[in-house]
């Protein structure tokens, strides 16, 4: 039962965050690149204000999987790094926290580009 409830909460919160993105695409002239960038920056802000961690606690992957969660992760990384290393953490925190995701995306994409054929232009 707990598992079903967790999945449902992730579905509803994650779906709602994506629906907001869709409204932005349909109602404004924001391009996908701008939406992704704004979501990350807003995620940093909501993480810094302590709002987003509460949503992650409630919805798990429903909050951490949308790119707002990536911003929240950057904020969390900086907070922990400044606590541990002082001023150096200002520079290292964000990148360190984001490293796994960015490195994975870059490496997997490189391998995919080598293995797969690009789609036919039509």
């Amino acid at each position, binding site marked *: 039962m707990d*598992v079903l409830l967790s999945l449902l909460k*992730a*579905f*509803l919160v*994650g*779906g709602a*965050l*994506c*629906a*907001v*993105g*869709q*409204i*932005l*695409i*349909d109602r404004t002239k924001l391009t*996908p*690149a701008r*939406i*992704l*960038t704004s*979501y*990350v920056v807003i*995620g940093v*802000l909501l*993480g*810094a204000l302590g709002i987003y961690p509460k949503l992650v606690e409630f919805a*798990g*992957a*429903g909050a*951490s*999987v*949308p*790119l707002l*969660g*990536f*911003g929240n*992760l*950057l904020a969390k990384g*900086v907070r922990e*790094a*400044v606590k541990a290393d002082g001023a150096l953490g*200002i*520079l290292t*925190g964000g990148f360190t926290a*984001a490293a*796994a*995701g*960015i490195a*994975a*995306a*870059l490496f*997997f*994409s*490189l391998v*995919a*580009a080598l293995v*797969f054929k*690009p*789609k036919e232009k039509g």
Partner: protein
Amino acid sequence: MKMTPEEYGRLAQKASPPSPMGKNLLMAFLCGGGICALGEGFRLLYQWLGADEELAAAGVSVTLIFLAVLLTGLNVYDNLAKHAGAGTLVPITGFANSVASPALEFKSEGFILGLGAKMFIIAGPVIVYGTAASILYGLVLWLFRLY
């Protein structure tokens, strides 16, 4: 026939097909929710296997990124994105797709300035502004001793 821009706007609106906004919204909600629920499933699985919270969350990101890149390579993700809109864009899988898709497309322009450079066409700004925001936050934390 002469008419003001407002009149023309009303006429054009009347003649154009009904906006698919409701359908777009529903598709984004269902697909985005589905991807997040899949992520939550992996998170629960990794925690059940003994991962702590942080490791499980990182594992979810890496797993979803792997799947998104694979589906991009198989030309499935971009087709799905045509219907799902923000539902496949906003999750971390959309970020992975934004790296993999140009990497594949621009391979023909060379490995350095094609594949290697074009990978960052969307990921670049995301990383630049995300990192800048985190540095500003770090600066505030450090200056005001908020940690």
